[in-house]
């Protein structure tokens, strides 16, 4: 059905912990037509033009009628989003982007911070397909991963925290470097750029396949602004994160 643009009602919007929020919007059409790793754009308000640009959010879950997101309040955009209440409407458009390509290989899902969102969706999809897979999520402390509890009915995961307050102590990338991932694996990853760089390096070392979902500045999400350029690794020029991505084979891009 292509891209849907609509004023969607907010069903839930609440803080979990440490500035991490869960947002749920009513949007059956997008829920039905999307796949793990895709995202939508949310316009923050039609009553003011500042902050101006819409924001991109990856689905963490798609129910039959709603889309669930995880976001962290880091700036003015998320500050304003956190002030919305159930019943308020936001303009959204999606589904956007390519999403993950599920392969037959042994799946290892590596998420950092809110980057866990699309991997929760992917994990649920893999379970639906009966695929064995591992989901590993990292955060600074236990509180940074508390949002995962909201999804415990559908996904299981292993935690890494920098202070050891939950799961293993260390970085989520330690899961790969500690010998859990070999050439037979396909890594699916989303998180901060630094983490994605390390994941890509480690995947190359181990000879594993590796898909990474990249966050870049985006103005349109539809392929027209050219603001989301991602340098190609093997030739000159750029991909567009919004239409060629946000998921890329880590060997194809320079990040």
């Amino acid at each position, binding site marked *: 059905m*292509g*891209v*849907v*643009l609509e004023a969607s009602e907010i069903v839930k919007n609440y803080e979990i912990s440490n500035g991490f929020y869960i947002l749920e919007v009513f949007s059956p059409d997008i829920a039905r037509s999307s796949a793990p790793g895709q995202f939508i754009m949310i*316009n923050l308000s*039609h009553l003011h*033009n*500042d*902050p*101006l*640009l*819409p924001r991109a959010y990856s689905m963490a879950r798609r129910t039959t009628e709603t889309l669930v997101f995880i976001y962290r309040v880091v700036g003015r955009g998320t500050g304003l989003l956190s002030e919305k209440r159930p019943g308020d409407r936001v*303009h959204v*458009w999606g589904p956007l982007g390519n999403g993950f390509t599920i392969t037959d290989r042994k799946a290892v899902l590596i998420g950092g911070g809110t980057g866990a969102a699309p991997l929760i969706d992917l994990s649920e999809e893999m379970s639906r397909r009966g695929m064995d897979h591992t989901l590993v999520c990292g955060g600074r402390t236990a509180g940074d991963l508390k949002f995962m509890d909201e999804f415990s009915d559908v996904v299981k995961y292993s935690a890494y925290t920098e202070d050891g307050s939950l799961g293993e102590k260390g970085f989520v990338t330690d899961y790969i470097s500690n010998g859990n991932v070999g050439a037979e694996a396909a890594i699916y990853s989303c998180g901060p750029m630094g983490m994605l760089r390390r994941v890509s390096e480690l995947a190359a070392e181990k000879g594993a396949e590796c898909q990474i979902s990249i966050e*870049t*500045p985006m*103005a*349109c999400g*539809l*392929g*027209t*602004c*050219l*603001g989301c*350029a*991602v*340098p190609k690794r093997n030739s*000159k*020029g*750029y991909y567009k994160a919004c239409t060629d991505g946000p998921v890329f084979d880590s060997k194809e891009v320079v990040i």
Partner: protein
Amino acid sequence: MADISVKLGALELPSPVMAASGTFGFGLEYRDVLDYNKLGAIVTKGVSLKPREGNPMPRIVETPCGMLNSIGLQNPGVESFVGDLLPQVKGLGVPIIVNVFGETVEEYVRVAEMIQSTGAVAGVELNVSCPNVKCGGIHFGANPEMLHEVTKAVREVTDLHLMVKLSPEAAVIEAVSNAAEQAGADSLSAINTIRGMSINIETRKPRIATTTGGLSGPALKPLAVRMVWEASRSVSIPVVGIGGISTAMDAIEFIIAGASAVQVGTANYTNPRACEEIADGIAVYLEERDIPKLSDIVGSVEVYEDYTLK
């Protein structure tokens, strides 16, 4: 619905609302979300003689009520545009105006010739004002003589509608407007972006890789309205208003200032249905006030004469 079709010289457009260059790709991207019948024209992303990769990242950054961009005129080049894209774009049924860019007069002329020869395009918009490219761009638009030269050269090779896009960085808008008119432009469009800068105070690096980028969006609107007013008073060809238009009210403000039609840029990003809503809103405005034709209000601003400063 009121009839909102407009004529720009000999060019008839079904609506006064065009999608601005660089904000609507080559026209295909908005098909799922927008009623293309509401569009007056699609102005394509800037097309140059050779393909251009564009600038390194970061290329865009949000600013108060606006954004800076420095895309670097990334485009597949005129050959690929004519061979691969135009056949698809043609099928949309919307008049196509090709935004043309060169680093020399010859490049402008050669691109315009190739566009002319396709027979599938309604007009050419000369981007003489893009602030992002080392040599070329900025200078043509800032300098009346150079603007005259490039406009005249293109005029000689095309009978398509020839629109010249003004730069807000020209010291005197009247001078560049007159230069373009005298060189044979069929219309002016105003304005392109104005250079701004934004710095990340943590890294102390510019938020745009090329240090400065072009400001667009609502922040720009008061400047753009003023320049459209100034330009339209100094020429007799039509002026197309651009700059921060995101609602029908904004568009009407430009029209009352002197614009015969408008282009919508950044608002396509913040609301992919912006062009459609603006066209509908203009029709409603006319109907509610029993104004028969849009042209009745073009340039109808009533300044307080006694107090007007030059």
